[in-house]
Structures are given as C-alpha cells and as structure tokens.
C-alpha cells in the first residue's frame, strides 16, 4: 500500500482536485505551497528508493527514486512552484487545478518504475494538460482537441509497446530498452511524439500559443521534459536519436524566423532545444547524458521565463504578434530586461544558464567525432540566438514603436519572472549546484578562456548578421500570416479529402435512392447521413480515434 501513496506527486494531484472548491486566497497558497511541500518531501528522501507492490498478481514498481528520476521530479516541483506564483492572480480555477494535476502526474511519471504506472500518469498528463488549454475559452477548443488527439496517440503507443514487451519478456519494468527490445519501437515513438520528434512536433507549435498567458508556461514546462526523461531512461545511447535530434535542432529555426506569433516562435525554439537534448541522449555517454539532463533543467527556467514575459505582454498589450507589437520597452521596462535575460540564457551567452548546459552536449558530440552533426548543431546554436535571443525581444519591445501604451506586468507575474531570471543567471555563474545533482559525476569546466571566446564570437557575429540584414532591409518583415507546416496534412489535406469522399458518398446515396428506393434507404438511412454531416468535428474526431485505436490494437495483437 505504501508503494502507491508514498509519492510527492500525490500532494500535487490531491491539491489540484480540491483547489476548485476553495476561495481565491487559499488557491494561491495551494498553487505555491503544494509543490514546495512536495519538493521538501522529495528532498528529505534517501538517494535511492524503490517501492514495489503486487496488483492482480503482477509485480509493479509504482515508485523509483534514483539519480535520474530525482533531477526531473525536483525540476517539475520547483517549476510548478514558480509557475504557481506567476499564475496565482490571472489563472482561472480550471487552469490552476489542471496545472497542479498536470505537474503532479508528470512527477508521478518520472518516479514510476514500471510501464503500467508510467502509462497511467502519462495519460493523466495528457488530459490535465488539455484542460489547461481548454481553460483558455472557446477559441482554444479546436487546438485543444487536436492536442489531445496527439497526446492520447502517444499514450496508446506506450500502451501497445508495454503490452508487447510484457508478453515477450513477462516484465513491466521500465528499464533501458533500446530499439531491439520487444515493443521497443512502440515505446520509442510514443515517447518521441511527446518529445516533439519531427512530424510529431506539430502539437508543440499548434498548442502552445493556444493556451492562456500562464497556460503556455505550464505546457512548456512538463510534457516534453517528461518525454526527455523517458527517452533518457529507456533509450540512452540509441544512435538513431542523433540524426533525429539534429533535425529537430535545425529545421524549426527557419520557421521561427518567419513566424509572426511570438509565442509560436518560442514553441519552435522549444523543438530546437529539445533537439539538443535528444542528441545528447542519443550519444549516450555520461557527459552527453548529463548535458541532456542539465539542459532540460535550465531550459524549463529560461523558456519558462521567456514564455512568462510573452504572457505578460499578451495580458497587457492584448496580442503576441510581432506585426502588432514594438516599442513596448517604454511601457514595460522590467519585462523587457527580464526577457533579455531569458534570451541571453537560451542563447547560451557566457554567465547565463544555457552556456553551462549546452556546452556539455556540444563538447561530447565533438569528442565522439560527429563532425557533421556538430556543425549543424553549431548552426542551430547560432540560429537560436537569432530567433529567440534577438527576434523575440526586438520585435516585442523595440523595433518600430507600435504606439501601445500599457501597464507593466502585475506584481505576481513580475515576482515569478524575477525568480526565474535569478535562477538563469545564478546557474550560469555558479553551475556547480546543478552539476552536483546530475545523474553522473561531472568533470567538466565550462569557463575556459577558449570556450568563452568561441561562444562569444559565434553569438556576437550572429547579432552582427541580424543587424546588417535589418539595416539593409533584407530581413523579412513580420507579417500577419499562417505558415504551413506538417500540420497542413492533418488540418487541410485529410479534412478536405474526408469532405470530398463524404460528398461522393452522399451523391452516391442519392443515386441509390432513386435506383433502389426503399431498399437503398434502409442501407444508408437518413439518420446515418445526418450523423455524418452534423457531428463534425466531434463525430469525425471520435471516428478517427476509433480507427487509430483499432489499427494500434491490430498491430499490437499481431506482434504479441
């Protein structure tokens, strides 16, 4: 029994469940207090602790604390405490409750020692995080449904993978699998969808900008990092992840340059940063894995900070579109300064947090002799400065003055942003505390004259390129637009095809009607036709889900 209830995750989930019943002041206390209490509990636990339980005759491990799960659990708890401060004033009941449950289940997932427990928490994160999106109101419903479909698909693949693995090996333990293990590919792709592998990445750019000012910060913190943990646990050293991660690091940079919605620019840059982590896990040495974990840790804070500043802009200026913004530094000087700190951190400027984590990965990629990969990652590192480091602060706060005059961010948001900024600079200057909680011993010195100089050259000349292109008018202007991505297939091609085939069916039915009269009417009853036409999108959604589930099950059964 203890194995099930001895878990800091349950504090957050419990708090999330009672939160909607409480008055506002108590909700605020709970939003910050619950994660911090859980973090204190986690901190007081021994370094390594595994609790097993038997359920229906199966041996399960609902709780496993070790060096790897500790870092991620601690990260999620601290992040939730910080986001709690940010959201306490503006977030709705639903959003606050869903955020606590989401973060709690993410903690539960990284502390899960078996695939069954992992699956349960994995699915709770899917539902709770979709609620975070839905809480933003009717405009977010469609994006929320698209998001939920993809998250559930990821969970189903995990489910099928776990079933196959169990049938072949008789074990549900969540250990290092590799692709050759039974069900390995299913688990890999299930994790991969959530970690924004190419094609799977569409949910990130689609969903993040659809949530509220604080909801986006919540979304950015947990789901993808939980997947990074799962990949590090199950697939460390899987070579395939090196090219996958490299593609992830490189391609979003191009989309980010021409994207107008600044929160979507940050979503693309999240994929880019996840790419570095995926490469690190793929390389799989102690140094590279440490790098991936360290980068996940600092990423939550600097990306959180950037999303917070954009959330504050959305709240005060009413929009996050580059084409509408500009000159906000006059109204929001503090937010501007904090955004620049976040930008410097994600760009890995010396003295900021990205520098001490990304260099672990970059160095090891070079040590292992992956020359081409290293060059692409170096391009991506320059590119991230270009779009997250310069473009975000420049178009939001500087550029041409759009004439928006608004109030500075509210005190609660400001407090959270300041704390996040302190973490970014603190970790950047004193990396040792972070290094000390990484899964493997760290023997790496980020601050050498050589390394500081090379990184500064790279970044300052990227800034030079931006400046030159801007002043010569070559830089593409921010335009109100939608840029097609892989989501075109899901949002345009497939629905169009479905609509076309539906029309063919309806026409066919008309002919049938005339030809066979009553007989045909019985075959394709009016009720059926009505349902097909009127129930979209929910009906179509259910249909697609059903089909997907069936395909997954058939595959699963055949493989099993």
């Amino acid at each position, binding site marked *: 029994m203890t194995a099930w209830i001895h878990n800091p995750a349950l504090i957050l989930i419990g708090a999330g469940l009672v939160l909607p019943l409480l008055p506002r002041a108590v909700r605020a206390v709970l939003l910050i207090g619950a994660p911090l209490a859980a973090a204190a509990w986690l901190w007081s636990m021994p370094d390594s602790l595994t609790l097993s339980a038997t359920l229906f005759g199966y041996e399960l491990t609902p709780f496993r604390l070790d060096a790897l799960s500790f870092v991620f659990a601690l990260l999620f708890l601290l992040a939730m405490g910080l986001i709690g401060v940010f959201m306490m004033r503006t977030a709705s009941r639903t959003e606050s409750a869903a955020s606590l449950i989401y973060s709690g289940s993410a903690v539960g997932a990284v502390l899960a020692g078996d695939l069954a427990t992992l699956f349960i928490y994995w699915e709770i994160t899917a539902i709770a995080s979709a609620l975070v999106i839905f809480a933003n109101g009717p405009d977010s419903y469609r994006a929320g449904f698209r998001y939920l479909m993809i998250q559930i698909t990821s969970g189903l693949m995990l489910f099928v993978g776990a079933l196959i693995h169990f049938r072949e090996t008789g074990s549900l333990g969540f250990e290092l699998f590799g692709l050759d293990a039974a069900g390995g590919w299913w688990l890999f792709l299930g994790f991969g969808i959530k970690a924004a592998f190419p094609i799977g990445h569409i949910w990130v750019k689609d969903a993040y900008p659809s949530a509220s000012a604080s909801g986006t910060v919540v979304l950015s913190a947990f789901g993808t990092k939980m997947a990074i943990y799962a990949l590090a646990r199950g697939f460390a050293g899987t070579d395939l992840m090196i090219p996958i991660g490299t593609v992830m690091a490189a391609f979003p*940079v*191009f*989309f980010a*340059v*021409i994207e107008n919605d600044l929160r979507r620019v940050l979503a693309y840059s999240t994929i880019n940063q996840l790419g570095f982590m995926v490469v690190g896990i793929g390389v799989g040495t102690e140094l590279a894995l440490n790098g991936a974990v360290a980068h996940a840790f600092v990423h939550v804070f600097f990306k959180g900070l950037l999303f917070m500043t954009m959330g504050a802009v959305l709240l005060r200026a009413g929009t996050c579109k580059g084409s509408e913004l500009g000159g906000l*530094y*006059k109204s929001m000087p503090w937010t501007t300064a904090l955004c620049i700190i976040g930008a410097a951190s994600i760009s890995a400027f010396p003295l900021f947090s990205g520098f001490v984590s990304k260099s672990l990965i970059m160095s090891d990629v*070079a*040590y292992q002799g992956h*020359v081409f990969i*290293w060059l692409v990652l*170096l*391009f991506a590192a*320059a*590119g991230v400065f*270009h779009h997250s480091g310069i473009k975000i602060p420049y178009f939001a706060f*500087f550029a041409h*003055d759009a*004439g*928006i*005059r*608004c*109030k500075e961010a509210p005190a609660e948001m400001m407090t959270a942003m300041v704390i996040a900024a302190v973490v970014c600079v603190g970790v950047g200057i004193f990396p040792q505390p972070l290094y000390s909680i990484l899964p493997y011993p760290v023997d790496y010195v980020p601050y*050498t*004259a*050589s390394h500081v*100089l*090379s*990184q*500064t*050259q*790279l*970044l*300052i*000349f*990227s*800034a*030079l*390129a*931006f*400046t*030159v*292109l801007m002043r010569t008018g*070559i*830089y*593409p202007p921010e335009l*109100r*637009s*939608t*840029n*097609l*991505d892989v989501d075109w297939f899901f*949002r*345009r091609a497939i*629905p*169009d095809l479905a*609509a076309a085939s539906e*029309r063919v069916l*309806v026409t066919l039915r008309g002919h049938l009607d005339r030809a066979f009269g009553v007989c045909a009417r019985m075959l394709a009853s009016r009720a059926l036709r009505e349902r097909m*036409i009127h129930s979209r999108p929910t009906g179509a959604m259910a249909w697609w889900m059903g089909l997907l589930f069936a395909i997954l099950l058939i595959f699963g059964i055949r493989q099993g």
Partner: protein
Amino acid sequence: MNKPIGSDNDRRWLDEPRNVDRVVHTLYAICAVTVLLDFVVQRHETLDFAHWFGFYAWYGFVACTGLVLAAKLLRVFVKRPEDYYERARRSRGERMKTER
C-alpha cells in the same frame, strides 16, 4: 491609456537615429575585438578546423545570413493568409450545406 506617439515627453534615447547608430557601432567594435582576441587566446578545440582564425565568427555570420535568406525563400512556399485554416473549414461547411 493610449497616449499619442511621438509627443515630446514620450521620446526616448533610442528614438534618436543617431543613438541607434551608436549602438550599432558599439556592436561592430565588439565584433572586431572578439576576432582580434583570437591572436591572444589559444583556443583548445577538439576538431581541427575550429582552429582556423575567427572560425566561430565567420561561421556565426554566414550561418545566420544563410538562415535568413533560406527562411525568406521558405516563406514563398509556406506563407498563407492568417485565417487560412478557418477559411478552409468554413468553405467545407458551406459546401456541405448547399449540397444538402
């Protein structure tokens, strides 16, 4: 809440084009200094070609210029109106209605 732009008390240091030039010139100077430091600092590189003079400088500049030009080209193919997906959805809905 919206004050007129450009009124005297609203103008800041950065609104003066001369000051923007100053910022840019400072950037040029920093660029020059970081490259010249290559003469002074012995860089330790794992990969041989990274020892080339100013490697990171020209790589950063070329990478970002190439990135922006490629992104401009990408825009030709992927840019659509802001309500592209909504429009498509509406037109599908209307077609269905008229055909019924």
